[in-house]
């Protein structure tokens, strides 16, 4: 028998039909998903069938070691994972998922591929890894393609190039693994042969139930700990304060006008808004109903007025203090630039190039900048230390996002409690969004 890697699959050449393989008329041999590599090898070994294995093409790997120490619960998590060398660890944001991954890489001591959701996280992982291991860390993204024994990539780049990368790493790590079951991304796990797999997340469950795919793709949940179990111990306590701001008279008038347009459309088409799904329906209608598109545009404009109201700028002025470390979040890039221009606060959007982003983060960390404003790019797990004040000027109303944005702020600073302010416009639909999120 001969096993050969071919673009995200394994060719099985030989007379035996093995579990999880299928006859491929195109190439005249059996074929299997790369995912089953470990099982196939185990099966062949157990059945004492001689075979030649040409699957792995590992990147040469230096010895990997670090001086990082684990906390008790991290140690527990690692012990559980090591029994199978597969599976997902569920830990709240800020509890040191990266450190756990680091220690696991060290114990496997073999080429490792790490998949994370955003370029910011790529940068952050690379920084942590190169500090801990003192070796060059690779990056495989839209911006850079540099493969090293330890390489960090995004879900998008990993998906696009999975068939080329799939046989070069022994350990496969997914950060924010709840993204993995998406129809496209799951193919990363299917096209990699990596026998060892680790998933990390703070929110295992998905609303669409697709997390049920995870055991097949990387192994089931092997360890779980919640924020409440850690609060006060390793995570700083925080407080949320909701602040109502009022629209100016002009804004109020405009808002009502746009909102009216939207409402009238709903009435004319007998649509009742009960949740985000109903809104999606209108978006779909806009494909053929010009009025629907008009209504959506009006609603967006109304929403923008509510989010971007002048009163919020004034409130921000009140909340800004030079001896705090403040991060301001807002949904619209326009608003980011407006705040940045008004207060001369560095800003980060998805358009900020990685070089400038890095500079801003570094200066924020070492205290040169006391505040920064950002649109959605800081979503999920980005590690921005030393911030004790968060101000949400707008949000999209997803509960997971809310949790993780909070998590980012849970860093103690000179024994100061972290505070998250939420600026909500009074008498608009936005209040409802915010209410829904808190549930």
């Amino acid at each position, binding site marked *: 028998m001969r096993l050969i890697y*071919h*673009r*995200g*699959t394994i060719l099985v050449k030989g007379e035996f039909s093995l579990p999880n393989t*299928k006859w*491929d*008329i*195109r*190439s*005249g041999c059996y*074929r299997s*998903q790369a995912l089953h590599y470990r099982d196939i090898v185990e099966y062949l070994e157990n059945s004492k069938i001689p075979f030649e294995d040409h699957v792995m093409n590992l990147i040469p790997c230096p010895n990997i070691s670090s001086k990082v120490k684990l906390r008790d619960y991290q140690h527990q998590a690692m012990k559980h994972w090591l029994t199978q060398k597969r599976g997902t660890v569920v830990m709240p944001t800020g509890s040191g998922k990266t450190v756990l991954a680091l220690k696991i890489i060290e114990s496997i001591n073999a080429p490792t591929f790490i998949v994370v959701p955003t370029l910011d996280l790529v940068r952050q992982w690379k920084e942590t890894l190169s500090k801990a291991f003192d070796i060059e860390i690779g990056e495989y993204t839209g911006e850079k393609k540099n493969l090293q024994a330890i390489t960090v990539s995004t879900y998008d780049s990993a*998906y*696009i190039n999975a*068939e080329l990368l799939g046989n070069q790493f022994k350990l496969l790590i997914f950060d924010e693994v709840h993204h993995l079951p998406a*129809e*496209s991304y799951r*193919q990363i796990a*299917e*096209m990699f042969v990596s026998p060892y797999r680790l998933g990390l997340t703070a929110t295992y469950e998905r609303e669409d139930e697709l997390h049920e795919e995870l055991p097949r793709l990387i192994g089931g949940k092997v360890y779980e700990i919640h924020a409440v179990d850690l609060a006060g111990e390793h995570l700083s306590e925080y407080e949320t304060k909701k602040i109502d701001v009022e629209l100016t008279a002009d804004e109020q008038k405009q808002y009502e006008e746009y909102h009216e347009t939207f409402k009238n459309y709903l009435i004319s088409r007998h649509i009742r808004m009960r949740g985000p799904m109903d809104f999606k329906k209108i978006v779909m209608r*806009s*494909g*053929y*109903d*010009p009025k629907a*598109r008009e209504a959506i545009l009006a609603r967006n404009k109304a929403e923008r007025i509510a989010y971007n109201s002048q009163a919020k700028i004034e409130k921000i*002025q009140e909340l*800004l203090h*030079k001896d705090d470390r403040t991060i301001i979040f807002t949904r619209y890039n326009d608003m980011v*630039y407006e705040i940045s*221009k*008004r*207060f*001369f*606060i*560095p800003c980060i959007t998805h*358009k900020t190039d990685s070089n*400038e982003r890095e*500079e*801003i983060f570094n*200066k924020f960390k070492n205290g*040169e*900048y*006391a*505040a920064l404003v950002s649109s959605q790019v800081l979503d999920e797990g980005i590690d921005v230390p030393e911030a004790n004040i968060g101000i949400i000027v707008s949000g999209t109303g997803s509960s997971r996002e809310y949790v993780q944005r909070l998590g980012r702020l849970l860093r103690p600073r000179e024994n100061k409690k972290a505070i998250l302010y939420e600026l909500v416009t009074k008498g608009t639909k936005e209040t409802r969004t915010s209410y829904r999120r808190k549930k």
Partner: protein
Amino acid sequence: MLPRELLVVWKRKGSIRPRYLTDMKLAEEVIQIFQHHLDKKYKKLLLKLESLEGDNFKVVRGLSALLERRCTFTPSSKLSGREVRSFLFEHGFTKTIQEREKLLEQAAQQFQVSKQQIEEAMFSDLEEEQLVSEFKPLTPEELVRRYNLSLIQTLLFDALEFNFKVEENYQHIFRQIKYLGLMYEINNGIHVTGPASLFKKNRKYGTSLAKLLPVIMKAKHWKIHAKIETLVNKEPRILDFDLSSENNILLPDIAEPTSHFDSDVEQQFYNDFTSLNLDWEIKREPDIVKAGTSVVIPDFGFYKNNMAYFLEIVGFWTPEYLEKKISKLKEAQAPITVAVNENLNCKKEDFPGDILFYNNKIPIMPIVKILREMEEKQIEKERQTLGEIKITEDIISLQKLANKLNINPKTLSTIEIPDYIIIGDQIISKNFLEQIKEEIKPYQDYAKVEEILSSHNLTTLVLDYIGYKVVWQGLHPIKIIEKEIRNETDIEPK
């Protein structure tokens, strides 16, 4: 290719297709807006385009997306936005308006410009703030053509499988299939999928298929079929998408038939062969020949009367290449002759089937000989299997009858058909010729006789058979006279 959300489609009864643009008006308007915004801020261009959007906003955005790729953008300020920002942020932040004014003043001094220029420069490197400094225009029709192609490619992003037929260009297409990491099967066209398609329907290869399309479209005639996964009433469905070069959709004119040759040797051979004016049609890379799980794409194909014969030229050589080629040729399910460069140091025994060696140029005569033999064999075979021929018409052309019987017309001329005679390329009943003879008897004038004959779809060739000969005056035939009667004419006159 466009972002998925700009795709507009028709779905109907299990089939799907893009909503092709046929109207040039919108394209013209969008192009004009771009032209009018030369040296203006991108932001303004976007605003203007937005005003054009109605229920057709996806089309407007699709067209703009294509045009944006033809623009160059440059920052609107001479100052570096990044430097100005850094200066302001490092001295920030400014809580009050007074503080802000003060810092602005400071920056203006530092960069030696006005406060307003500082404000303008701050984000001047942002996309929206940049100037459209260059725009390569194109005609509305060309834009529409490219837009339609983009729509098709975008639709193919969600293709699960893909089928195509072409009549040329195989080499290029198969190279591209391999380059894109795709796989193929041959049954009723070429069925393209990816390695992992074996396990489940898979959209991962859609982007690669979209990239394959333009290469297929280079052929003069092409036909594609794809299975597209899409949501219908929120449920995933698989719909059919069909398109061919005969559909007359406005698409870019990228047809590029395989006219250019891989080498001078091929070019020379092609010219030599065509100058012989044989009734064999020669085509370059005309077809694919199945060979085990793979295919051979011969360099030349020769066609005549259901006969197909191929020539493969082996001009260069590496041991792996040769080994692969030979093993493929051994499995090839069609007659292929291999022309091997004699400098390659190969032996005749290395190759299966016919082989000929060449030095600088491929010898024509051995090929002609092979073709002739092939035809002779065909005729022989047809003669043996041909049953009794029944003809009801008075006159029928050889070709027509051969087509009807699905045989080589030359086969017909080698056999006897009772009561009929072959004259030129026609088969004519002997009785009918008798009638003709009676009909022209009263006339001698050549022109008149010719007129009568052609009214019966006959040529003056028959005159000889019914016992007349033409009298010439100089270069002009003027009249016919009866030949002297001999004992052994084809037709015995009464």
